[in-house]
């Protein structure tokens, strides 16, 4: 058992850190949403230019051919330095690896290079207004017309859709089949989608709603077999979970560091109740770090991570919610006049954090997974 980097990992971390320090010299996040997106586009191009865009991608597809641990180390160092999110994070982390598993040679050749370069930005058309936690209940219809699919439906919570050219789209192709067996996955152009940004409770518009009306997608753009889209979706969701372990920890640590600074500045470092709460929150944040290392160690050794991986998402959401709420309720966040706007860091972060227990699998779904897979309890649905 060793919680430190191996010498090889440490060397890679140092190399990544040096590159990031250089690439981020003088960088500051734009305050305006549009300008921040431009920064994300520029960052994707920069990562690609210097060979950091596809760390875990095979060399044959333009990547570095390293493992998930290296990817996680790079992400950890990038988040520590407050680097921008690359615009094609969904393409590189989810869509590309899924095309590598399920795609035809033609699809691999056509799409993979443009994902890494950021030439084609991807979004993920999974959730629907009527299919959230019950994703397999999705209703967006694709009907076969000759060599094409005619698609009609609505998708929601689609990050980056307004910037994307392509969408990995789950559609219902056999309404008569059991729900998991009538889904197909299409690689669609977003050109003909109607895309509406959704204003979130903190005023940002990170997600979109997409209306798809009589959009035609060639059958050659189908990923996987007809009505075998669910295994494709499962592949995407697996990639979604494994990439985040170390990054989540850093996000939580940054919020905790702010809390420590805010308590110091308020002159209340001797308040025993505040100290006790801080101590508990700090332990939870530390648990994310050490659990993340256990998870990555298992992945590096090609083993299935244990029960600790189910716990991480739940605790991550809770601890950031608890820290930001505490700061506001203890009066450490300054005036609440900015509540509901993007004016105050704490209120903005608190409101954004409400999504943590919903996005990427709600708390309720995570708990059901633990109940069934770890505790062996009977299924509730």
């Amino acid at each position, binding site marked *: 058992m060793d*919680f430190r980097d191996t010498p090889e*990992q440490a060397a890679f971390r140092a190399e990544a850190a040096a590159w990031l320090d250089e690439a981020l010299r003088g960088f500051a996040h734009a305050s305006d949403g549009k300008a921040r997106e431009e920064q994300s586009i520029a960052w994707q191009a920069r990562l690609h230019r210097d060979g950091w865009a596809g760390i875990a991608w095979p060399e044959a597809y333009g990547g570095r051919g390293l493992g998930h641990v290296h990817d996680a180390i790079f992400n950890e160092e990038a988040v520590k330095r407050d680097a921008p999110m690359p615009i094609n994070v969904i393409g590189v982390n989810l869509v590309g690896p899924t095309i590598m598993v399920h795609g035809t040679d033609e699809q691999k050749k056509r799409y993979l290079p443009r994902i890494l370069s950021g030439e084609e930005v991807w979004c993920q058309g999974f959730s629907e207004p009527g299919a959230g936690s019950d994703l397999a209940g999705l209703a967006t219809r694709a009907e076969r017309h000759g060599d094409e699919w005619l698609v009609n439906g609505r998708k929601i919570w689609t990050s980056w859709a307004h910037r994307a050219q392509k969408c990995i789209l789950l559609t219902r192709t056999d309404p008569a089949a059991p729900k998991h067996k009538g889904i197909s996955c299409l690689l669609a152009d977003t050109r003909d989608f109607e895309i509406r940004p959704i204003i979130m409770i903190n005023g940002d518009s990170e997600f979109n709603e997409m209306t798809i009306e009589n959009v035609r997608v060639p059958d050659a753009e189908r990923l996987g077999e007809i009505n075998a889209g669910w295994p494709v979706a499962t592949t995407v969701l697996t990639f979604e979970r494994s990439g985040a372990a170390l990054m989540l920890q850093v996000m939580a640590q940054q919020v905790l560091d702010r809390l420590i600074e805010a308590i110091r500045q308020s002159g209340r470092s001797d308040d025993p109740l505040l100290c006790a709460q801080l101590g508990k929150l700090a*332990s939870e944040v*530390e648990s*994310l770090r050490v*659990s993340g290392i256990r998870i990555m160690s298992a992945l590096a050794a090609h083993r299935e991570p244990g029960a600790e991986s189910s716990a991480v998402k739940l605790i991550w959401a809770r601890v950031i919610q608890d820290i930001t709420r505490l700061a506001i309720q203890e009066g450490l966040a300054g005036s609440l006049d900015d509540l509901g706007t993007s004016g105050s860091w704490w209120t903005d972060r608190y409101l954004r954090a409400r999504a943590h227990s919903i996005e990427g699998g709600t708390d309720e779904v995570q708990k059901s997974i*633990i*109940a069934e897979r*770890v505790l062996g*309890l009977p299924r509730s649905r």
Partner: protein
Amino acid sequence: MQALFTSDQEMIADTASRMAKGGLARARALLNGASPEGSPDGQLIEGWSALGVPEAQGGSAGMVEAALLVQALGEAGEPGGFLTHFQSVHALAGAGLADRLLGSGARATLVDEHGVGAARKSALVVERTGTRWRLREAAGWEAVRSIDPARLAGRVTPGSVIAEGEDRGHGLERVQVLLAAEACGVGRGAIRIAAAYATTREQFGKPIGVYQAISHRLAHATADLEAAWSLTLHAAWALEGAPELAVKAARMAKAAAGTAAIYACEACVQTHGGMGITREADPHLYLKRAFAIDAAWGRAAALNREIGSALLSS
């Protein structure tokens, strides 16, 4: 990042689980004033007392192995006197004196500032004064009542001092990590019997584990226990691999494990419904053990204040 168990370590956990089989039944026997059958105490003290102690003091393997052993005993509900003896050895290891106890062949009890420990008879005791550990003879014992009726507790009349020394080697943190590991095991054991009960007990025509009001409470407890277990393994590793982190890591592990174990045991009581609040059913055995562990050598409430205070002053 190689935070993985070796196959030897996995074997220790398996062996310990097997040895501690029937732990809950032995705890129940003690509760009823009977003498427990098939206690692995002798075997444990004989074969495992030096586990995790530095080699220079006569030990073998490391603290991760020690944590796995204790976790398995906690999960089985094992009530015996091995744990306090094992803690005594590790406390003394901090003062470089573990070999004095290991070499004596005698049993020891780790006693608190009131001279109270989790045994009613042992030839030796280990106590802490200030930052020093002291090994002394026990001149006499009187029984005391403990929150945990399934574990004997006694107050010692201290006898002559055999050895003492400054805790320069994280003896306190070793004890805290062992207690944290035991707490993780106790919580896990409680969740295991709760899940088994929720799978068989039926209401409204279904096993109650189908209802998310039941299953999600147990899942919540499981997540907290997993977090505490990761912290415990990290602290166990730090004692040998990164001593500069050991104080903070051990505090975090002990605080998180104590809190998670108490929550898990409460969830276990609640899951058992009416049976959960009786002495006839098993949940209270775990619940009371969890409180006894939390109270020993650093309560979660106090440790959390220390952790927070240290962060604010650094």
